[in-house]
């Protein structure tokens, strides 16, 4: 099976702090990879490198076989133009911890903004897909609402629909339920589970161990910028090999 996301030997520093240290990870097409790890271990940074919201210092990231953010010329990597990176990002959906819905746009406008601007779709096509996606996340009746009028859980489901409106090949989730009240978490996880079942390739940073156990094909555990353990849920969650992993799991379980 080919890897939809192939991260190889990626390192990155902010100033003198090494945030990612020689990280390699392959996520096969149609599979779900959950990234666990303590705060500050570099999970968000790794995710943001995948769609080049952060640049890397060394190593390569490929999505669907295409090198992200750089052009290879012999043994050199040249950073791509902002326009070329933007085109690559259009194939990679991302969902943020704080939703980041466009506050000056209604729900439906949030969903059609990028399809109109980036894919240059007709309004009719974009709206039709947006309505289908709203129904899919269970919010068909909120098309005309403003983001601020919605609960956190509703906003996050809209944010997922907004990312899906670009028909991405892979989806990145950065702690999508961490900013939500406990009773709202379930709705968002439900949407993510059905997305996983539909065959979407997903890379998910989360502390929801239940979700990881049920949905993940692969779990990686990060600590201090390194992946120190990876494998299927049964192994990483139930029989962790590394003491850092078991220490972390005992705090979140």
């Amino acid at each position: 099976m080919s890897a939809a996301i192939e991260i190889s030997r990626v390192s990155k520093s902010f100033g003198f702090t090494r945030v990612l240290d020689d990280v390699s990870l392959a996520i096969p097409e149609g599979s779900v990879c959950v990234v666990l790890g303590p705060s500050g271990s570099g999970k968000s940074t790794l995710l943001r490198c995948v769609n080049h919201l952060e640049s890397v210092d060394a190593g390569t990231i490929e999505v669907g076989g295409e090198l992200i953010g750089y052009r290879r010329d012999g043994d050199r990597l040249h950073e791509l133009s902002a326009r070329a990176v933007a085109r690559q990002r259009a194939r990679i959906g991302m969902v943020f911890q704080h939703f980041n819905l466009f506050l000056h746009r209604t729900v439906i406008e949030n969903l059609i903004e990028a399809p109109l601007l980036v894919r240059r779709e007709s309004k009719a096509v974009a709206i039709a897909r947006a309505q289908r996606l709203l129904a899919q996340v269970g919010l068909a009746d909120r098309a005309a609402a403003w983001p601020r009028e919605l609960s956190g859980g509703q906003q996050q489901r809209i944010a997922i629909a907004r990312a899906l409106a670009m028909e991405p090949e892979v989806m990145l989730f950065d702690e999508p339920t961490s900013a939500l009240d406990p009773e709202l978490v379930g709705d968002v996880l439900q949407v993510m589970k059905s997305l996983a079942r539909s065959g979407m390739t997903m890379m998910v940073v989360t502390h929801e161990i239940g979700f990881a156990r049920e949905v993940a094909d692969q779990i990686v555990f990060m600590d201090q910028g390194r992946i120190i353990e990876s494998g299927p849920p049964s192994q990483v969650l139930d029989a962790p090999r590394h003491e850092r992993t078991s220490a972390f799991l005992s705090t979140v379980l």
Partner: protein
Amino acid sequence: MVPEPAAAPLKVVRKRHYGRWCSALVALAVVALMIDSMVRNPNFEWEVVARNLTSDSILAGVGMTIELTFISVVFGFAGGIVLALMRLSANPVLVAVSWTYTWLFRAVPMLVQLFLWYNIAALYPRLALSIPGLGELWSAPTNSVISPFSAAVIALVMHQAAYAAEIVRAGILGVNAGQHDAAQALGLTPFQGFRRVVLPQAMRTILPPAGNEVIGQLKTTAVVSVIALQDLLYSAQIIYQRTYEVIPLLMVATIWYMAMTTLLSIGQFMIERHYGRGAAQQSAMSWQWLARGALPRSGARR
């Protein structure tokens, strides 16, 4: 104890804001007394005001004031956006240039700038555009390029750009960084993200101080009288220097400034309402606040 089930829901009696009514009445009375004293005081010479209000030279002055304000606000804010983006860029040279520009043009008094631009010929007698290797492409005596009007436009635009830059920068900084991330993640180019996502949201914080700036600029244009450009105030001055009707002619100018300020304020209100889309609280006008004390509140607000 369980309350009686059949009881009708309790009715809320809104608090009566007697203090608001009293203060409003006092304020209205004071305003009425002031207007009365102005209308009945013969020294204001209202018939002179009426005679000059729409005279040709005053109207020409109004036109010049509007033209100067319009040009300096449009180009000043365009320059301000560029300066703000430079200041927020990752390029240290652009940051330094933008900072220095803002520092310089806020430091030099408007009047001094106006004289400097007007008398630039004394410093640079000829202007020339030459490219190394191609030689001189264009040249002209400075005095043929710098008229009172162009000197005023340059000074006003440069001044306005420095102030606008800070207002725009504050607005951009006020937009959550996550909005920029989300735009980028969806595949918008940096320019599209700025234009479609960041700037419209920054407008909400930019507009109130920008409205202040524009109205301030309307009156700042009056300094151009020192280089004999006939704006509204200077046109009034020319007349009263001849007729000695100082107060009535200043009243004429004031009435026009008030009219223009009123139009600008209405424009600001409408533009703010446009950019207030999706905001938690639409800008409420204070008379609504006053009225709410007494009148029943209209249905749920958006």
